[in-house]
């Protein structure tokens, strides 16, 4: 009979729920019928349902019907067609970096896995162990990089006074970073703020970073989702590749192909020469093998099938634009609803911000109030996922926000 008093695990404390994924856990526990989950960034239809894209279903059907398909281990770097297709997607099919074989691309577990593998690679092989992340940023970023073995610092990004970009602060902080430091950049649709630099501002950031030899590490989780255009949403990344310099890019297909649970993503490292790229790829394998040996097949096969077939690809772009457009329309509706209620404050940032999320500007107390009294689930930093809203639920949210703003400090 086990001695329940003595456990080798007795010193292990219970960890709190993850601040983002924990919102869904709390939402699931709530039995109120009017509850609304605006926590995690997962797209919902107007009916409030998860969506599997038509092209994804078609690709899956093709895969299941193919009698020659097997489940043999992928190579450590993942599915070759997927890697090629992903690099083309983000850098552009005509990118000289790709044509010159200067890009090392490895399939990874969505955005998180790509960032972690990139971080571990840098901690092992790069002389500068500091990564600068914007303030604020996705809650998981600092943990990923810290556990990868890097030290994390922040650069100013969001200005609560203007609810926009603190561009001067950004330039100053990056200007003061040590030469060669790694800088995390959100390629588009900054999470959680939705505030993106303009193209002019990106150009200034690029010049500054190149003059200081700072290493860009792009997190691209919303390509196509921000503006509705895959190419437009990759401009920031392509700008940095066009100048011939090096950079990292982590890609995720969780949102733009709705493949969330399949964990599909890629890490690309653009190098100076093809020779460096091939050595870099060989070393990436040494990071991956002791972590999970090789990546999962299913999601990558779906992506590769879609990227390779021009009909499926075109259909995808149409479905992607439809999702992006629905979100843009939710933004408009929420703003109008707040204005109709005369909610105090300037809420135009709701339509200025880009992507899946709105940084409402609500504080933690107001958020807690909205959860308690109105069953609205969101992260305590005031971020809401517009993807979780529908025309039917906008009024409920607007009422809750109005109440929070007028009754809670």
């Amino acid at each position, binding site marked *: 009979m*086990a001695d329940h008093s003595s456990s080798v*695990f007795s010193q292990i404390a219970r960890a709190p729920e993850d601040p983002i*994924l924990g919102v869904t856990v709390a939402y699931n526990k709530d039995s109120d019928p009017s509850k609304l989950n605006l926590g995690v960034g997962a797209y919902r239809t107007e009916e409030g349902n998860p969506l599997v894209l038509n092209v994804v279903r078609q690709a899956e059907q093709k895969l299941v019907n193919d009698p020659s398909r097997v489940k043999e281990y992928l*190579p450590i770097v993942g599915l070759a067609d997927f890697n090629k297709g992903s690099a083309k997607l983000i850098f552009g099919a005509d990118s000289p970096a790709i044509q010159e074989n200067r890009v090392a691309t490895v399939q990874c*577990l969505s955005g998180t896995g790509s960032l972690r593998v990139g971080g571990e690679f840098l901690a092992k*092989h790069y002389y500068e162990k500091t990564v600068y992340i914007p303030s604020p940023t996705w809650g998981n970023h600092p943990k990923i990089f810290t556990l990868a073995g890097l030290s994390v610092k922040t650069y100013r990004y969001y200005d609560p006074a203007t609810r926009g970009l603190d561009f001067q602060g950004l330039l100053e902080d990056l200007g003061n970073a040590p030469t060669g430091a790694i800088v995390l950049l959100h390629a588009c649709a900054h999470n959680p703020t939705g505030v993106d630099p303009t193209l002019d501002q990106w150009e200034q950031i690029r010049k500054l970073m190149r003059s200081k030899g700072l290493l860009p590490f792009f997190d691209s989780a919303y390509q196509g989702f921000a503006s509705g255009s895959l190419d437009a949403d990759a401009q920031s990344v392509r700008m940095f590749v066009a100048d011939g310099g090096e950079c990292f890019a982590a890609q995720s297909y969780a949102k733009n192909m709705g493949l969330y649970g399949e964990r599909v993503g890629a890490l690309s490292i653009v*190098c100076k020469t093809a020779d460096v790229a091939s050595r870099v790829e060989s070393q990436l394998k040494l990071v991956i093998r002791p972590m999970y040996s090789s990546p999962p097949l*299913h999601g990558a096969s779906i992506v590769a099938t879609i990227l390779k077939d021009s009909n499926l690809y075109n259909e995808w772009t149409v479905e992607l634009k439809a999702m992006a457009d629905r979100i843009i329309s939710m933004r408009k509706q929420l703003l109008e609803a707040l204005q109709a209620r005369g909610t105090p404050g300037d809420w135009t940032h709701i339509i200025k911000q880009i992507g899946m999320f709105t940084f409402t500007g609500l504080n933690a107390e107001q958020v807690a109030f909205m959860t308690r009294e109105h069953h609205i689930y969101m992260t305590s930093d005031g971020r809401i996922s517009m993807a979780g809203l529908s025309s039917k639920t906008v009024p409920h949210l607007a009422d809750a926000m109005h109440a929070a703003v007028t009754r809670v400090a």
Partner: protein
Amino acid sequence: MASISLSSICPSAALSFQEKCKDKTKSSVLFGKEKQPLYMKTKSRGRITMAVAVNTSRFDNITMAPPDPILGVSEAFKADTSDMKLNLGVGAYRTEELQPYVLKVVKKAENLMLERGENKEYLPIEGLAAFNKATAELLFGADNPVLHQQRVATIQGLSGTGSLRVAAALIERYFPGAKVLISSPTWGNHKNIFNDARVPWSEYRYYDPKTVGLDFDGMIADIKAAPDGSFVLLHGCAHNPTGIDPTPEQWEKIADVIQEKNHIPFFDVAYQGFASGSLDEDASSVRLFAARGMELLVAQSYSKNLGLYAERVGAINVLCSSADAAVRVKSQLKRIARPMYSNPPVHGARIVANVVGNPDFFNEWKEEMEMMAGRIKSVRQKLYNNLSAKDKSRKDWSFILEQIGMFSFTGLNKAQSDNMTDKWHVYMTKDGRISLAGLSAAKCEYLADAIIDSYHNVS
């Protein structure tokens, strides 16, 4: 082809964690803090439209890594144009026609999943609940009191490797300085996993080349000699690479010494069902330890037994002495997984849950598994028959019949293994391991000839 030592082709495998620590800054101190990196030459800061980047990369110092000793074998095999070539490298099941095999029950499950139109939402960090329940029941037995008492913390992991890595991270965080004892030899990737997780390890004697069997006394002595509270990595069944498993009596004695030393057993179960053909029998070592009330860790993989290799399905189970401890441990396992990959892939886990959860599918699975294990046992026999018949030296090859699971440890050394590849186009790992799963009855004679030649004519 020059023979290369395992340590030179897989540097991280050869060094223990302590040795690696001394070396860790080797590749990173190329540029001092005072100097500007060579790759960066600017004419003047901020006054140019394009930083003049010299053709030097900031990663120029990076060396080409050697190919993985196991997965690299398949790459070399693919490149070989000989008709005679045989891939006995990686442990992936092949049919008699030497084709990869997708289990019929897996295809049925996938069709069902597609018909149902399941969504692709994020799984929780701990994975698919139905999978976690099924996998723990499969391992411990559905009626095991430890499950009713809720003493097992289970999270879905990225097959065996990913589950081992998460467990290693738990050890590093909560048992600082604790060592993992691993068998000599063991699966080549074990050392890499613990090195990258920064968990120190040392080896216990396991394989006795003189008897081509288990060095049981050496194993017990080394486990006894380790500091109290070490983790002991045990292969639940079908030891990889040797195929040599302890007997039930030996398992009892191993459990005795582990309890004496307050060590924590850490099982790697990658072949449940594949060793004997019976899921329950292959879990008996784990269940023996659980029945003694011991706390333990178990990493599981569905790569081989459900043929789900590329879908990366597995789990890490931590059996604790109380339900409260299991809750706390599970929460910390989640905390490790989140910054590694956020949540695990849904597809493979759904397949497992569907197969295990449906009685018809489950029975079909058991039949297919018996078939696969049966084919391997029969090629073992055929290989042995050929070796005995053709080896004029009358060497005793019966160890091949005694070994269990997918692999056979031939006893061939590196030079002899190289001869197998160079002369006979037989691809295997340099430690002398061959995967019988990649052998057909038709090729047994050819393989026997190759082994006999390499053993006797190469030193």
